[in-house]
């Protein structure tokens, strides 16, 4: 680690609270010029909040922020850009229908003496600028014609042209092949030599070891520490991320013997291969994997939101043939989507309507109209059972808090009396109290005999509520952990999620020194 480089970013004692959550508490982060600084932690550890503060999207409650020696007490997104902070998201959004050159020089195209755009100079300048960074792209090509890695590299280059000093890379490799990852890393390394600093956010720890110089670990909104990567190995890093194993939720299994969901050899090219799994009555099964591991697609495919590929699926001993959500619900499979704002709720409609969307056909009176009496009683029962806090069932759903919104989605699904419930990141973006409530609901449903499959990247959460945890890596189920066995530890699970094998002493060969 070359400490002779100037300090680009110094964040000290950053705290930030949201109602109900202490998102960050006294966190420090120091980044030097020419450094690639990893930022790791589980979901909800505070990475995104920290970055949002750095980008001026959120204001910190306390702490100091210094960029290039300039001190900021509060910052707007615009000031953050001015100060040289650039953010490159996983999915880069650019002006697709325009050429690479125009995207680079947008708003500032070179003009000739007549004030007209000089296209020759534009292409030349764009080419030269890219060349200086060692990036060879056809500047005449439209951006929509580029591959993902080119678009990401172009976004990095664009940030540098607008004088970025520090670039935040958020999971840039999730949709990339190995070859493309190598190209991207090569590019990032060459920029590093020019003194550009990077903050690298990734769940792929393997990549953190491959490209980062130092790594900062966050856990539950607190700083664990900043470490030099070469003095670390993956199990150690995972231990830092997970911390002490505290069970925050106690439960007893209500698993019965009859299988409810049986998946045999399900394969969809490019998403998942040869998936076999069984979920029994009253059993809670966790399914975890990195972005792109296929766990998320599997959930959506089961519900009929995506194509399913080939293979057999049985629900309650009958072949499961649903091609769209309606049929899936009718055949006893309900799904809680990850993005509840987009897929879960109709925000501008009242709670009452949202709860009964899935079961309207059961509420019809002999005239074929909805019986408001039946509807109100049913909705009131679910509001009471799940403890939804709302002034009245007529309240618009988007006025509720995140936790209560999630409970409304649960009510909507539970109302269909499913035999198998697939939950996708059920506790994302909701506060701790509501999380406990959600766990309680899951338990309650399981004890009523519902089979539950939770797709989640929160290992701690899975350990708390599941009877079994399956791990998916690269489209395949690679490991299975049973609750209560000694090998079932957060460290081991995370290791397999990262593609390692807990039974081999030598973890993961790609860690090169």
């Amino acid at each position: 680690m070359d400490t002779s480089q100037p300090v680009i970013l110094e964040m000290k004692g950053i705290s930030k609270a949201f109602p109900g959550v202490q998102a960050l508490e006294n966190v420090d982060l120091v980044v030097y010029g020419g450094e690639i600084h990893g930022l790791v932690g589980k979901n909800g550890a505070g990475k995104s909040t920290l970055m949002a503060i750095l980008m001026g999207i959120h204001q910190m409650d306390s702490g100091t922020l210094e960029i290039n020696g300039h001190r900021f007490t509060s910052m707007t997104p615009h000031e953050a850009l001015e100060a040289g902070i650039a953010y490159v998201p996983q999915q880069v959004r650019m002006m697709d229908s325009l050429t690479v050159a125009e995207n680079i020089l947008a708003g500032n195209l070179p003009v000739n003496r007549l004030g007209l755009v000089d296209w020759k100079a534009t292409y030349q300048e764009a080419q030269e600028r890219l060349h200086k960074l060692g990036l060879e792209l056809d500047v005449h090509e439209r951006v929509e014609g580029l591959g993902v890695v080119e678009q990401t590299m172009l976004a990095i280059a664009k940030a540098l042209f607008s004088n970025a000093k520090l670039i935040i890379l958020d999971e840039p490799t999730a949709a990339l092949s190995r070859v493309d990852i190598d190209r991207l890393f090569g590019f990032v390394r060459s920029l590093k030599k020019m003194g550009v600093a990077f903050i690298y956010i990734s769940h792929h720890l393997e990549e953190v070891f491959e490209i980062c110089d130092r790594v900062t670990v966050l856990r539950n909104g607190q700083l664990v520490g900043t470490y030099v990567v070469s003095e670390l190995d993956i199990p150690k890093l995972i231990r830092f991320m997970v911390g002490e194993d505290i069970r925050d939720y106690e439960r007893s299994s209500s698993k019965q013997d009859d299988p409810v969901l049986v998946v045999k050899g399900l394969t969809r090219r490019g998403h998942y291969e040869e998936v076999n799994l069984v979920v029994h009555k009253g059993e809670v099964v966790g399914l975890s994997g990195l972005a792109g591991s296929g766990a998320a697609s599997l959930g959506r495919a089961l519900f009929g939101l995506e194509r399913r590929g080939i293979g057999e699926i049985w629900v309650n001993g009958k072949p499961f043939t649903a091609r769209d959500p309606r049929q899936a619900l009718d055949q006893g499979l309900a799904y809680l989507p990850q993005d509840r704002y987009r897929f879960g709720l109709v925000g501008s409609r009242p709670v009452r309507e949202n709860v009964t969307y899935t079961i309207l056909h059961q509420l019809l009176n002999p005239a074929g109209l909805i019986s408001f009496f039946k509807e109100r009683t049913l909705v009131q029962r679910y509001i009471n059972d799940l403890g939804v806090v709302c002034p009245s069932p007529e309240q618009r759903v988007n006025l509720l808090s995140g936790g209560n919104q999630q409970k409304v989605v649960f009510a909507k699904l539970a109302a269909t009396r499913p035999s198998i419930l697939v939950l996708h990141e059920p506790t994302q973006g909701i506060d701790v109290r509501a999380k406990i409530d959600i766990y309680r609901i899951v338990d309650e449903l399981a004890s009523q005999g519902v089979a539950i499959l939770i797709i989640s990247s929160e290992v701690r959460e899975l350990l708390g509520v599941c009877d079994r945890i399956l791990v998916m890596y690269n489209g395949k189920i690679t490991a299975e952990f049973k609750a209560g066995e000694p090998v079932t530890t957060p460290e081991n699970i995370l290791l397999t999620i990262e593609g390692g094998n807990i039974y081999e002493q030598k973890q993961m060969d790609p860690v090169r020194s």
Partner: protein
Amino acid sequence: MSRSKWIQFVLDRMIWFILLLVILFFWLRAGDKFLTGINLINILLHASVLGVLTIGQTICLLSGNFDLSAEGAVSLLTVLAAWLMLPYREMTLAQAGGIGWELSPFIVIPIILVLGTVIGWINGFLITRLRMNNFIVTLAMQLFLRGLAFVISLGAIMPGTPKEFNWLGGGRIGAIPVSVIVTILLFLGFEFFLKYSRFGRELYAVGANRDAARASGFKPALTITKAYMIGGFMAGLASWMLLGRLEVSVPTLGVGMTLETVASAVIGGVALSGGSGSIMGAFSGVLLLSVVDTGLNLMEVDPFWVTGVRGLIILVALLLEVQKARIRVGAVATRSGSSTGTAAKS
């Protein structure tokens, strides 16, 4: 919270207050002439065809789509109905007869209603299956249908529709025109229907959030197609009503009505983005336009000004609508500020 609830209450009923004000204005200016029974019935009569079309438009707008084709359907279906019913006659002075089949109105009426529904289905098919832009599809459909109306009529008017056919548009029960009764019944019926039927729920859900509606087990493509079919059916009904009242088919009938229906719906609080608004709200919009028309007419204002005044009313209604949305967003933001932090990553 109670204050914002109160604001909400007023905002949601703003249009009725405006309507009252406008009526008050005309009452003061035009005197007792305005509040006579005949004039009030005139207002409603004026609102009937527009109202029927507005119901269809509102249902499409609630699903998040425009239906610009309804006025073209009116042109075609009125011409077609006259053409099928009237005896053959050589064209003289741009007046003509029908094809000479002289079909009974009892056959023709189902034909135009079914045809209207089929037009709606085609719109729905193109939009949901071929994923074409709803605005352009229905616009092109409008041009196409109006073109067909000209092709059939050769630009001529066809007077003298049979009595049985005219009953809906021109008949009266006591002093009250049948069309007024039917229109009011339709508005009440559809308000009730959308509120208490499964289709109504689907419609609002699909319009407000198509993805969530799908994930809740609805079929957005089907719902939207149904909405267009209702729109087409209402266009057929409006054609029947209009032709019955005028007793003569003119190929330019219906021209410009699309904008009026969209305007009525928007004035009545139906959101162009879909999923918000009500049929009775749209009715208030229809009434407002109709009151203004009749009132200005009574004051003997130059009819050319009327178009301009209508445009102005639409502008004002829109401005209010936009401000309303802003106030709402403000209220939501202060209320649910807590969720923004945790949702940052999504």
